[in-house]
């Protein structure tokens, strides 16, 4: 009969299994360090230089000149305003329509899988195609939107949707909403379907109506998904430049330019990398603040994901 032995052993050094994890992650870490982290540092350097690709030899540090130029840019306030308007309207509409879609999809029906496949399609399409298609839909002369509205008697004469600042912004938002609703719909449907049915059964026994059930069971349970999706969509929409670039290229007269699309145009057409870098730094500052807020709000601990 052996009795417990309290002797503390001189244990050999434990072999390090962490090393395996390290080597598996190393390629990715290197990739991101070289092609994301290093370029970001580079952007900061550029922001304080007079660096034009047309005159690389003449590049030199110029302090805060680039930032001053941005602040002095007469379009800057409007572009900032556009960015927030675009992001806010797009995300709000995407979310509300996605919510309606998810609620309609919540109960099973024949062909639901097929329906989901079709409704999901916009999310697989490139911004280029979407931008082109909506530009074509809203075409002033040959576009079907004008034609249909004329036939319905809503319009008296053809309207140049993309030629008017306010209308153009509305069109861009509409295209972006079309692109993003399926994503919200799918995420919310999945969240709703993970709610245990016995909660609803209990609510039925208590005599709760559909609206009460929605506010007291459905929404609270889907809350983590909703918050996470909203926050990530917000930043993705804010960052997206391609759709605007294709549809309006920021026009007419900067009415639809956002910070992202403006930055791309500036980099691509003026080749003034110094000033673009400064814009990038401003972008990054906002991003860091947002990321902090994000982690605070979602309690992000790495256990979830994107």
């Amino acid at each position, binding site marked *: *009969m*052996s*009795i*417990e*032995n*309290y*002797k*503390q*052993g*001189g*244990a*050999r050094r*434990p*072999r390090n*299994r*962490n090393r395996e994890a390290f080597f598996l992650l190393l390629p990715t870490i290197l990739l991101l360090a070289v092609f994301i982290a290093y370029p970001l540092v580079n952007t900061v350097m550029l922001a304080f230089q007079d660096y034009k690709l047309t005159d690389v030899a003449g590049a030199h540090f110029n302090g805060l000149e680039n930032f001053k130029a941005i602040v002095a840019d007469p379009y800057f306030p409007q572009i900032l305003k556009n960015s927030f308007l675009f992001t806010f309207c797009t995300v709000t509409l995407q979310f509300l329509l996605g919510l309606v879609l998810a609620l309609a999809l919540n109960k099973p029906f024949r062909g639901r899988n097929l329906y989901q496949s079709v409704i999901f399609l916009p999310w697989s399409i490139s911004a280029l195609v979407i931008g082109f298609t909506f530009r074509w839909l809203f075409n002033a002369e040959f576009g079907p939107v004008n034609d249909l509205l004329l036939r319905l008697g809503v319009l008296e004469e053809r309207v140049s949707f993309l030629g008017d600042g306010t209308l153009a912004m509305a069109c861009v938002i509409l295209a972006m909403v079309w692109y993003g609703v399926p994503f919200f719909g799918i995420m919310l449907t999945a969240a709703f379907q993970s709610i245990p049915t016995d909660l609803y059964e209990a609510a039925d026994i208590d005599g709760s109506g559909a609206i009460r059930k929605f506010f007291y069971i459905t929404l609270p349970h889907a809350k983590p998904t909703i918050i996470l999706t909203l926050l990530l969509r917000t930043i993705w929409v804010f960052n997206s430049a391609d759709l605007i670039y294709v549809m309006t290229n920021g026009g007419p007269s900067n009415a639809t330019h956002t910070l992202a699309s403006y930055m791309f145009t500036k980099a691509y057409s003026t080749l003034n990398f110094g000033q673009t870098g400064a814009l990038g730094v401003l972008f990054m500052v906002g991003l860091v603040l947002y990321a902090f807020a994000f982690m605070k709000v979602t309690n992000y601990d790495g256990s979830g994901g994107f």
Partner: protein
Amino acid sequence: MAKISLQHIYKTYSGNVTAVHDFNLEIQDKEFVILVGPSGCGKSTTLRMIAGLEEITSGELYIGDRLVNDVAPKDRDIAMVFQNYALYPHMSVYKNMAFGLKLRKVSKEEIDQKVREAAKILDIEHLLDRKPKALSGGQRQRVALGRAMVRNPAVFLLDEPLSNLDAKLRTAMRSEIAKLHKRLGTTFVYVTHDQTEAMTMADRIVVMKDGYIQQVDTPQNLYDRPCNLFVAGFIGSPQMNFVDAVIERGEKGYAARLGESVIEIPSQRAPDLEHYLGQTCVLGIRPEDLYVGALPPNIGSAQPLEMEVTLAELMGSEVYLYLKRGEANLVARTPARAAARDGDHVPVFLDSNKLHLFDKNTQMAILH
């Protein structure tokens, strides 16, 4: 077909958490050894070290005569049954069972013969073409056993294989596993938290707690002669009663005093208790060694304790009486006919031949 020798085995995780302390055990060939203990006691870690799924921090592990510390699991000649069965979901039952043999380049005919033989023994022949998803819990359990069997390994490792089954199935599988062990004639190492499983199946039981071995012995000896308070309390259901008692000098040797009553300790059993005279010890007595009402003949004599019945729990063939007197609470297991009602005051006799005494400080057994 192999003995296993664990010598001074330690498992330390980074951050200095030691899961297993100085584990020493010789498992004989064809023996059925069960590691049992509460969760976190290190029993699963020990099993996984034998399997090679967990690295041994220090110490030596032999399977047969071979030191296997640095041998990969696949080369240890072992088979393992997992708690969640771990069947390969993309393979049919047949392929699940054949997988290990196929890896070892066994001929197709031999694989087929072995799989069908095992399937026949386990009564799963009709399931061979199904995917694991289409099986019930009990059926999956059999497939997992079959997958281990066909390999004809030197050692069978089972990690809580019955804990995902319902109570009725668990009892049935218990006897089947015991039968399987006899039939295969292979060394079995089995981990469970359920002392009933351990008691019913094992040749020898290893009781563990907090990473230390508490006691290693046959089920009968473990039940009759637990070496400390933990083992005494862990093995047996309902569990052993513990009450404080003061050791005194008795008429023919020593006696234990519980409040007003004095229980003579039969002199032929008593070791030297001189050291404990006047001290409080823990007295242990199993529920079946308590007699309520009258003392049957040829049972060690003792003064009865007057106790109140707080609850009578009818189990069918017997009754558990929950008894109370002052601070002391006891459970007695009595025949159903000897019914006492709640609130009755009854005389309770202790079989003094079956007393256990434990040191209150070290918790080690003094007498059993």
